[in-house]
């Protein structure tokens, strides 16, 4: 089934906007995606009709809000094909989800002297928490190389797992700069064979293709709501219950305890143990609506549409003289980072903005990756969403050719 783009675009109020008299060409969905009307409406309805604090009041409204909040957890579990909704912990975003694992599982389960293996493809959100763990807890941080094509160097992963010291592999499922999709199933098998657990940063991947926790068999999986057409302020850590049981709490406060005295407290069972304080109730409802929205379109249809976009962009962008693309991975999603010979990324982004094209310039929270590819300044990144059209990619390509003339 293919997507009806004109209908889909009509679902996103912001896309019909003109910016300085030009149609908006939004090519920064990789940073944060736009929101369909159903998400906006669901959040409004929550606040207008079914809002109160959750898990607390013995009155109808609180029960309704609790029901909606837990239904959102159920929707996430369904979206990920998790075997149990309790495997779903709500966080603020991916960054918090990864920090939760680093802080809680990292200190509670990993022993000093063990290693965490990340890769050169990582976003800072999957680098810094492990550096902090290294410094606080005495673990070793290893970095698996990327190949020149921008793929994960599997032999290097194997070499860095060989001594059995790695307790955790923490790797992106899809690069937010190169678009590379990593071979997740294979990585799970390699990690487990080496006695390590494995976490995926699914911030990008979960948006573009179906991910199935039961089929994948990973230990932790993180994603963030705002890239999945949902609101900001809500993210997900999927974690196996057996790990959650062994993890000490992350933050302390209300909602995460079952009994409290001044001497000691008992933790609530997972996942409440990791959701201290009033959670992002309205945002959870919004994320639920976003998941219903993409599920109704079908993740398979979204993936097919985006594959066509990737093929089209590959043809159009590689045709442009002076343009060099970072990464040529075989399996990739709709994220393209590039440089243009005579134009600095920032100048280019300003120019494109004037044509109504929103792209990002800089290093996209992946400075080591840019260094690895010899890009000292930054790149321009165009990233696609389910509403992106081939026409928009053509427009980008034409604008880039003109931009090159401008700076010639």
């Amino acid at each position, binding site marked *: 089934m293919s997507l009806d783009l004109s209908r889909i675009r009509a679902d996103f109020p912001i896309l019909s906007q003109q910016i300085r008299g030009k149609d908006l060409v939004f090519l920064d969905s990789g940073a944060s995606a736009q929101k369909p009307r159903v998400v906006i409406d669901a959040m409004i309805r929550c606040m207008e009709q079914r809002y109160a604090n959750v898990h607390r009041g013995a009155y109808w409204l609180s029960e309704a809000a609790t029901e909606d909040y837990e239904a959102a957890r159920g929707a996430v579990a369904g979206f990920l094909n998790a075997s149990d909704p309790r495997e779903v912990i709500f966080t603020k975003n991916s960054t918090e989800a990864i920090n939760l694992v680093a802080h809680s599982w990292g200190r509670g389960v990993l022993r000093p002297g063990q290693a965490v293996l990340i890769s050169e493809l990582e976003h800072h959100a999957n680098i810094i928490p492990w550096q902090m763990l290294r410094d606080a807890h005495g673990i070793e941080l290893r970095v698996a190389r990327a190949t020149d094509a921008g793929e994960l160097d599997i032999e290097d992963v194997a070499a860095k797992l060989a001594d059995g010291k790695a307790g955790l592999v923490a790797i992106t499922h899809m690069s937010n700069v190169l678009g590379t999709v990593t071979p997740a199933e294979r990585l799970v098998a390699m990690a487990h064979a080496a006695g390590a657990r494995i976490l995926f940063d699914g911030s990008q991947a979960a948006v573009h293709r179906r991910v199935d926790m039961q089929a994948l068999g990973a230990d932790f999986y993180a994603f963030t709501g705002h890239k999945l057409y949902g609101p900001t302020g809500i993210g997900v850590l999927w974690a196996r219950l057996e790990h959650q049981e062994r993890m000490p709490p992350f933050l302390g406060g209300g909602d995460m305890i079952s009994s409290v005295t001044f001497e000691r407290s008992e933790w609530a069972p997972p996942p409440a143990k990791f959701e201290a304080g009033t959670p992002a109730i309205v945002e959870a409802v919004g994320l639920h609506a976003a998941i219903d929205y993409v599920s109704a379109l079908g993740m398979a249809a979204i993936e097919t549409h985006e594959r066509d976009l990737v093929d089209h962009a590959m043809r159009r962008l590689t045709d442009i003289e002076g343009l060099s693309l970072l990464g040529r991975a075989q399996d990739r999603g709709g994220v393209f980072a590039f440089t243009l010979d*005579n*134009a*600095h*990324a*920032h*100048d280019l982004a*300003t*120019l494109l903005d*004037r*044509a109504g094209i929103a792209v990002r*310039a*800089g*290093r996209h929270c992946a*400075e080591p990756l*840019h260094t690895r590819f010899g890009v*000292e*300044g*930054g790149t321009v990144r165009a990233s696609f969403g389910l509403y992106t059209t081939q026409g928009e990619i053509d427009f980008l390509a*034409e*604008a880039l050719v*003109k*931009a090159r003339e*401008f*700076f010639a």
Partner: protein
Amino acid sequence: MFDDLRDLYQEVILDHGRKPRNFRRLDDPDRTARGDNPMCGDRIELFLKLGADGGIADVAFQGRGCAISTASASLLTELVKGKTAAQAHALADGFRQLAMTGTCPACEAALADDMERLQPLSGVHEFPSRVKCATLAWHTLNAALDGSKETSSE
């Protein structure tokens, strides 16, 4: 498609961006400072040679950056050579005002000629995310004159 951007990217800026003046290291500088714009990866290093009177006898820079930050640094080197530290600080203040608001009504008459030459950069004030590009070199100049080594336009 980009005609209205000729205000921001005037020929002077494109020219200085492509062929920055005084783009070299000084062999034996009295002062150096580095400026960093972590957001976009722009980075410059500024070198000052001071005369017996404490004035700026020579100035040069190296680094990488967008057309706007490079042109701004290049123009800076042309304008501050021969100035006293106080005059250079005053020009830096005037330029920051120009970049942020498009004009500098408070600027002294003595700065008028220099401000005239910097006028092509005034267009950045309409591009809030680019103001830092234009001011990076000037922050770095202040840091070099004050004897601090690192500065950031963040």
